[in-house]
């Protein structure tokens, strides 16, 4: 993950200039797209000025979030086909500039990680070199006298001809006569019947006359069956979309149409065509820091979030985005996820929306806390929580040397194995003071005991502190998980309510809304404990904790009302109206508190108000805080 950002930092300038060019293009393109999609183009927020146009296609439900709140980021959700479209725009642009076939332009762009600026520089410098490096053509071995005789009669573009003749595509075969055909003829299909010699595939050694020989620009032929098996193995087993010639030492890359051609020969291969497309899109998305592939299994959507494209801004905002899809698709799911989103629209199943963080690998909404701190916390929980819990409940520390001691039996007269200090397990005071009255441990207020407990409490306080935050964090997490049950229960209550009261379906929706609000707020609350743990002491933290307290109280009130509401309702059915009013009020209040919490922390990040008790990238040195670094 971090490498993505390093990349973005370095290459930022390139993308900026790209963007300017794209913007210019998009102005023209937008009208065209409007025509194409206007049968269901009812989006009114065409505010995006980034690389991608949002069109409200069927399979593309979630609208662009306009940035109305300071804790939200602007982003656009893209289906695979939309990403493919923008890939095609890039390819067409390059293909137009250089006068090369789109398939060649595709390979060139992929070779340089879709960095158009760099590609143009390199191409201007030495077109042959970059064509060879990207696997579009074979390295020049002998000067080609044949290139002169076959110069294209289509003299529309001098640069085009220069490009073509400089490429030694013509070396490969006499069957290619015109350079304009040469690059598309990378996929050369020559039947063995063409030549008098019978073709023997160098891979499978088959020489039957029906064999179809295929080769790339390098003219290393193999039969179509071997090509198919090879492409399948590369795509399925290695997840590779850059498929090179099979011949040893040959670096020529197969263009996309060639791959599709060989995949279509085979039933297994046909199934992999979609996978191949997906791999290509993933490669494109991974090379662009403004894009991120949805991490949910089986999902092929992409989110574009230009405002979170560099690492430095992640100390000021939390880029939580949604790809627009819900749930986990079944294996037969088509890649555009059309059927999925429409299915969940109608079904009442509570499927999880694909919410994830654009800035880090956490696949949930970790607002209000920023990525760096959220990850610190996650790491700490992974490392420490179980061990810490056990230590806390099973051990004490020797009040002299602070070794951790587990009492596994016997009397309360303890002798530390390390420093031989003798003490009482109950009061932690020195054993020597106990005498015969030890069992009452009535020396609680004695000096020795107090000191011993002080020493212990000092070293234990950090653990206590961690567990304070961890337990609350875990509790909210657990409650969020339980909300699935609550959802089911609520659904039943809603049905009951329609039967037992005069409320209509639309009027009982308040229950569902309340559960949704509850779940959302618990998620927020959960992460406020991660934030609270690392927040440096001070007035800012006090205010933060006030907000946290208000939100928590509101959440618990609402939860109680929802859980208990059913019983109450059973008893006095005539009171449904009152219950509805109370739940609706509480829901609105909870949402308001949540809003305040998120808004305030987000503004705090923008203003640089928050101070941490640990070192966090992009912030000043940690402030002194007791028990901060544990």
């Amino acid at each position: 993950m971090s490498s993505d950002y390093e990349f973005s930092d370095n290459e930022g300038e390139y993308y900026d200039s790209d963007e300017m060019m794209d913007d210019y293009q998009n102005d023209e393109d937008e009208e065209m797209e409007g025509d194409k999609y206007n049968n269901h183009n009812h989006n009114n927020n065409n505010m995006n000025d980034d690389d991608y146009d949002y069109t409200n296609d069927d399979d593309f439900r979630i609208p662009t979030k306009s940035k109305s709140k300071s804790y939200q980021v602007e982003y656009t959700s893209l289906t695979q086909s939309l990403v493919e479209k923008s890939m095609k725009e890039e390819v067409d642009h390059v293909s137009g500039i250089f006068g090369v076939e789109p398939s060649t332009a595709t390979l060139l762009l992929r070779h340089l990680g879709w960095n158009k600026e760099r590609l143009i520089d390199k191409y201007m410098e030495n077109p042959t070199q970059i064509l060879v490096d990207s696997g579009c053509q074979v390295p020049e071995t002998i000067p080609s006298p044949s290139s002169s005789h076959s110069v294209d009669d289509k003299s529309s573009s001098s640069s085009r001809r220069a490009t073509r003749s400089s490429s030694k595509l013509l070396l490969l075969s006499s069957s290619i006569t015109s350079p304009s055909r040469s690059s598309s003829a990378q996929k050369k299909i020559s039947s063995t019947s063409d030549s008098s010699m019978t073709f023997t595939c160098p891979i499978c050694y088959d020489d039957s006359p029906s064999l179809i020989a295929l080769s790339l620009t390098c003219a290393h032929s193999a039969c179509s069956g071997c090509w198919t098996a090879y492409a399948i193995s590369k795509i399925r087993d290695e997840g590779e979309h850059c498929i090179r010639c099979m011949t040893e030492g040959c670096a020529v890359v197969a263009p996309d149409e060639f791959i599709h051609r060989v995949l279509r020969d085979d039933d297994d291969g046909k199934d992999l065509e979609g996978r191949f497309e997906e791999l290509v899109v993933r490669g494109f998305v991974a090379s662009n820091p403004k894009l991120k592939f949805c991490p949910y299994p089986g999902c092929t959507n992409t989110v574009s979030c230009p405002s979170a494209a560099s690492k430095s801004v992640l100390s000021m905002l939390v880029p939580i985005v949604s790809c627009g899809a819900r749930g986990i698709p079944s294996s037969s799911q088509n890649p555009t996820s059309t059927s999925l989103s429409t299915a969940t629209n109608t079904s009442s199943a509570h499927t999880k929306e694909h919410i994830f963080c654009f800035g880090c690998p956490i696949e949930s909404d970790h607002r209000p806390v920023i990525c760096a701190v959220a990850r610190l916390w996650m790491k700490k929980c992974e490392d420490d929580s179980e061990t810490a819990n056990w230590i806390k409940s099973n051990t004490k520390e020797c009040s002299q040397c602070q070794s951790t001691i587990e009492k596994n039996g016997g009397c309360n007269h303890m002798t530390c194995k390390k420093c031989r200090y003798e003490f009482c397990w109950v009061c932690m005071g020195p054993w020597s003071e106990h005498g015969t009255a030890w069992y009452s441990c009535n020396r609680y207020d004695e000096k020795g005991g107090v000191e011993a407990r002080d020493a212990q409490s000092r070293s234990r306080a950090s653990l206590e502190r961690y567990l304070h935050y961890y337990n609350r964090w875990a509790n909210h997490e657990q409650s969020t998980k339980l909300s699935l049950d609550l959802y089911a229960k609520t659904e039943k209550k809603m049905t009951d309510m329609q039967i037992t009261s005069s409320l209509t379906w639309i009027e009982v929706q308040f229950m569902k809304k309340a559960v949704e609000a509850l779940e959302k707020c618990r998620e927020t609350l959960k992460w406020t404990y991660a934030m609270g743990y690392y927040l440096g002491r001070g007035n800012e933290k006090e205010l933060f904790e006030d907000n946290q307290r208000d939100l928590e109280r509101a959440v618990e009130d609402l939860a109680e009302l929802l859980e208990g509401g059913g019983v109450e309702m059973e008893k006095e059915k005539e009171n449904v109206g009152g219950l509805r009013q109370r739940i609706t009020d509480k829901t609105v209040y909870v949402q308001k508190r949540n809003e305040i919490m998120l808004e305030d922390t987000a503004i705090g990040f923008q203003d640089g108000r928050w101070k941490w008790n640990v070192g966090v990238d992009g912030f000043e040195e940690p402030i002194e805080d007791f028990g901060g670094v544990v």
Partner: protein
Amino acid sequence: MASISSRRLSKELMEIKNDGCPVGINLVNADDFSTWLFTIEVMGDSLYQNEKFTLQFRFDQQYPISSPAVQFVVTEGRQAPVHPHVYSNGHICASILGNEWSPVLSVIAVCVTLQSMLASCKEKHRPIDNDRYVKHAPENPKKTRFHYDGEFTV
């Protein structure tokens, strides 16, 4: 349908039977299409004069798309050559058996490559990480991800 691998191997075998093996290489056993054995000697002036090694090829259904598992046999008194790219358990660190494998290569081509690898050896010693590798090595050398760097194996 006969798989590509058996069709291809039967052709390779036929070629070996018709044309014979290159000098110093002899087919020992090719009774099926899963395991073949060859003996390999380095001819002429070399550090391995009068030494004879047994080379084992194992093929899966995807051969020649996927590379064969090739190693020296180190059982029944047979030894792996002492070579900076050959581990004492017989595993070989050669790029053509790993990421540079090409379906165009054949069993004989691999034999010849390994023969010349031995012939060009200037100093007989085991790979520097031999002990560590052999201790944890998988049974099938294809499961090892070698790092190829020309001079040494790392």
